[in-house]
């Protein structure tokens, strides 16, 4: 426990340092924050244009789709802001800067995650949170089911972070091709923006039982919206989010450690 607290403490200290560094250029910082708010808003514009043409997508109405988009978006954006930099591992290995991290008295995972900590990405969190707030205002979810919302966002953060860690660990093997990991992290972000019912049944089963992205917003979202599962999967899966998140997190931690042990520097 003490070890985890120590890691959190160094993370916060280092993050504060990066924020102070970025705040030296306030105009640029504000512009980039606002910019990321707008850029991610484009995804929503796409959803809005789709709903100009149709009343429901995959059997879901606009506020329901916005709810799914918002919950996944908040999880994804927070995970990206806090831990997304882990996927820069390949660059650090190639440049040799990863070796410097190994000799410092702070966990290399924390150093990787916080490196160039971009507070500007909070623009994206705000955007998703705004969408979620608008959706909730229209949906009138009763409080008996609303307790699931904070829990699903939390599980979503853990799931996305675990995926990023996997992506980072993969780069111990494939330093040349960081984009492979993007297919799963950003691909996962894209996938969860829409109700999974628009995708094919095979794909939905794959993201339920293999890469558990369905637990970011789909299964718990069905519970919050009180909807039957279009694929007829068991009801208890809706509460399996924390189990899926923990399992994936443990697997990711194992992969990261295995990669770290195997690491032999680039040499000269």
């Amino acid at each position, binding site marked *: 426990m003490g070890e985890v607290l120590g890691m959190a403490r160094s993370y916060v200290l280092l993050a504060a340092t990066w924020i102070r560094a970025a705040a030296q250029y306030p105009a640029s910082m504000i512009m980039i924050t606002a910019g990321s708010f707008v*850029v991610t808003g*484009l995804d929503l514009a796409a959803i809005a244009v*789709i709903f*100009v043409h149709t009343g429901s997508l*995959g059997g879901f109405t606009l506020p329901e789709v916005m709810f799914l988009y918002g919950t996944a978006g908040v999880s994804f954006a927070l995970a990206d802001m806090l831990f997304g930099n882990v996927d820069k591992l390949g660059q650090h290995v190639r440049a040799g800067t990863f070796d410097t991290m190994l000799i410092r008295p702070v966990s290399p995972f924390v150093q990787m995650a916080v490196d160039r900590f971009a507070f500007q990405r909070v623009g994206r969190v705000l955007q998703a949170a705004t969408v979620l707030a608008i959706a909730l205002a229209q949906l009138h979810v009763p409080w008996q089911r609303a307790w699931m919302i904070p829990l699903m966002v939390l599980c979503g953060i853990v799931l996305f972070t675990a995926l990023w860690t996997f992506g980072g660990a993969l780069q111990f093997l494939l330093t040349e091709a*960081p984009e492979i990991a993007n*297919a799963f992290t950003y691909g996962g972000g894209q996938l969860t923006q829409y109700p999974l019912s628009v*995708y094919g049944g095979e*794909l939905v089963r794959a993201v339920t039982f293999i890469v558990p992205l369905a637990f970011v917003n789909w299964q718990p979202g069905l519970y919050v919206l009180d909807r039957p599962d279009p694929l007829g999967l068991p009801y208890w899966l809706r509460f399996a989010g924390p189990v899926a998140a923990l399992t994936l997190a443990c697997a990711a931690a194992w992969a990261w450690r295995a990669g770290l042990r195997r690491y032999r520097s680039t040499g000269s």
Partner: protein
Amino acid sequence: MFGFRRHAVYRAAAFAGALTNTIFGVLRAYVLIALWHARPGLAGYDVADAVTFCFLTQAFIGPMQVFGGALDLAGRVRTGDVALDLLRPASLQLWTLADDLGRAAYLFIVRSVPPVLIGAALFGVTFPAHASGWAWFLVSMILGVVVSFGLRYLLAMATCWIVDDRGLLQLSLVMTTFFSGMVLPLNLMPGWFGTFTRALPWSAMVQVPADVYLGKTDVAGALAFQAMWAAVLLAAGALVTRSARRKVVIQGG
């Protein structure tokens, strides 16, 4: 040719890029299929056309740098190396264009063909009926790359005046992804807004070549539209290069 060989070095990166393009293509195809099942025949496309459109747009990402990739030139402006480039006995603009066309040709082979083939295997895509369809598509594609270059060249030269190009790059990313037809086909955009988006240069990068491929547009008009924007952007680029040359002289080289 040099541009082609220079980019051919990064084979693993290109392969990873193709894989990512394909996965995103599959995800977006499902969304479009759901929309077209709800509204068959929307915007004059059928489901097969919509799927084809989706994989074509994924295919355009690499060659046309839809995500607003900066030219190396922007970096050279920041470091001042551009002064050397301006001294060379070849036009800076044409030199950079040649390099960029080489890059696009290479990325077309490794990053555009695989997603479309996999899309064809998974969902089935339509192909132009005649050889002339392929030929027009190729012309349209090249014009699209030139338009994309024209925009990115202006962006790079703007660094001469504003030095920090990150804000502009972000703006360019927004404009390009949305107004090119990358996010959704532009003919889904409602009313006057749709007409407006189809008149902007960005539509010449994705929407127009895709429509030429699908045979959904008058070919001569489409190519003339692209050629018009290519000419306007290249001319603007030439003007900016001239004033940049003067600026460098004023600063004392």
